């Protein structure tokens, strides 16, 4: 992945998570992955198009998702209902939106697709021909993995 794209995503994820969740957010070691990988339970996907093609996936466990929703809505949420799903979708939108804004300032033009949310157990993501950058984020409410796979159009 192009070096210039990495930081905006890392920063955006860090900023937004700190802003909406509060508390200390720790960024794990970044790494590349191209094998199929398990999805923890809830995955929000935002597609990117424009000068580049690709997608960003926000992956977390159902418990983490519920914790985040409870915090963001300021009320205890026990099931992943419409409201909770909309909350996670919104979080994905906020992070990707900020990253794309940063990239726009650097002169790269991206468009976003509306986010899609996948929930379920024992899911696996297998676009293993694509090399993805994994940004692990350790929040006080659980782990969120930002999985970015974008490449320049040739």
């Amino acid at each position, binding site marked *: *992945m*192009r*070096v210039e794209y*990495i930081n905006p995503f890392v920063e955006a994820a860090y900023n937004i998570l700190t802003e909406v969740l509060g508390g200390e957010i720790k960024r794990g070691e970044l790494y*590349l992955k*191209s094998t199929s990988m398990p999805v923890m339970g809830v995955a929000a996907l935002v597609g990117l198009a424009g000068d580049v093609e690709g997608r960003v996936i926000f992956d977390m466990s159902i418990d983490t998702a519920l914790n985040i929703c409870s915090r963001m809505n300021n009320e205890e949420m026990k099931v992943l209902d419409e409201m909770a799903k909309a909350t996670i979708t919104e979080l994905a939108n906020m992070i990707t939106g900020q990253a794309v804004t940063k990239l726009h300032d650097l002169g790269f033009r991206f468009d976003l697709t509306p986010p899609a949310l996948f929930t379920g157990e024992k899911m696996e993501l297998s676009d293993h021909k694509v090399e993805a950058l994994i940004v692990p984020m350790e929040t006080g409410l659980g782990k969120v993995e930002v999985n970015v796979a974008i490449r320049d159009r040739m």
Partner: protein
Amino acid sequence: MAEIDAKTISGQQNTAQDYENRNERVAIIDYKMVTFSLAGKDYAIDIMQVKEIAKAGRFTYVPNTSPFVLGVYNLRGDIIPIIDLRIFFNIPTKAREYDALESLIIINVNEQTFGIVVDEIDKVVGISSSSIQPPHPIFGDINIKYIHGVVENQGRLYILLDVERIFTNKAKVAEAEAEEADKAAAPALAAEPEVKKLVNATRDELDISFIRDALGALAKFYVTQINEHWVSERYREWRDSRGNADVQLTSEEDARQYLENFLSPDTGTLWSDEYASQLSALLPQNSAKQINVWDVGCGKGYEAYSLAVILREKYPNARIRVYANDSDLLAISNAPMLNVPENAVTSRYRQLLVQGVGGSWTFAPVVKDMILFEYHDCTNQNSVPNMDLIVCRDVLSFMNPKQQAAAIADFSEKLKDNGLIILGKNEAMPQHSGWLRSVQGEVVAFSKE
């Protein structure tokens, strides 16, 4: 309508009569042959030599035999050799699947039994032996001395193989090979697993083999055909420099010292004028409008910038694109904004550098725009276009053998036919693998044969 029908019927009768006439001509069927196909062509063998046909696979491999001997097979208690006729005749074969069953014709020649593997077994065809015509060189792709004759039957032309000739020769060759193998017991052992090899190996070879393992474990440096030449050369130096001390590598520090002078010139800095000129001299003339270059393992980016400057000199009229990758995030993060230390600025680079407000030198946008830095691991899927030049210095040696092979295959696929690959100073493409080597000073380049 009725008229037409009548005509067709009479027509059919005519054809039937024709057939009868023809059959009368070949009247006596005194020769039967088993027909089969190899690469789409029809071949046949005298049925008297065929014992049976079978389907079998997973033959037991026998080392040190000719490539067309697939191995041996247990046919109801008899161990018979299996020969692939396609390989024997140099006919292209499909890649063999491990479990696939092969069509097998079991034949008897001079009281010996062989199994031969063919593409497809067809049927038994009866003919008159008088209709066998002598072979002509234009039939088939195989040596005329193995052809007994050519037969036409129902519009198909069969090439009748002279099995005796094929296999009496083969038997002799096989015997000779067996004898030779006995005589040359030591070289034969070389094909055996490592353990046996070590028995005959000298002390030095033993040491080298331990060093190979140690380098893999301590420095993630894998010794393969790419670099084994250098490792053995280096061993002599190393042994002498250690004096009485243990030659074995026992720590990461030892491994680092052993590999000290492995790296190519000017690793981690801008290339010197000398190295740059040598590399430039190796580059072929290329009038293409677009020139793509892949810099695998560009590290902090010095290599990519040096390359961009050289290419700009060499191909002033082309649009040059350097795809620079590294899997070390820390190293490559700063590459797009690389600061060049004052002392590294030579006249070659000066005109393409701009001085920032803080006094530090960075490359001008014309050079920066040529390079696309990517955080990418080339052992993953590579989505680069076809390349005119691939620079991969001292990268392959630090991949495990499987990754190395995959990377070389990928390079070969991505490299244009007139393209060039530059490896590290002490690295080389495996011999006899379709690469041509050319050397200019300390730069070693490979092109496709």
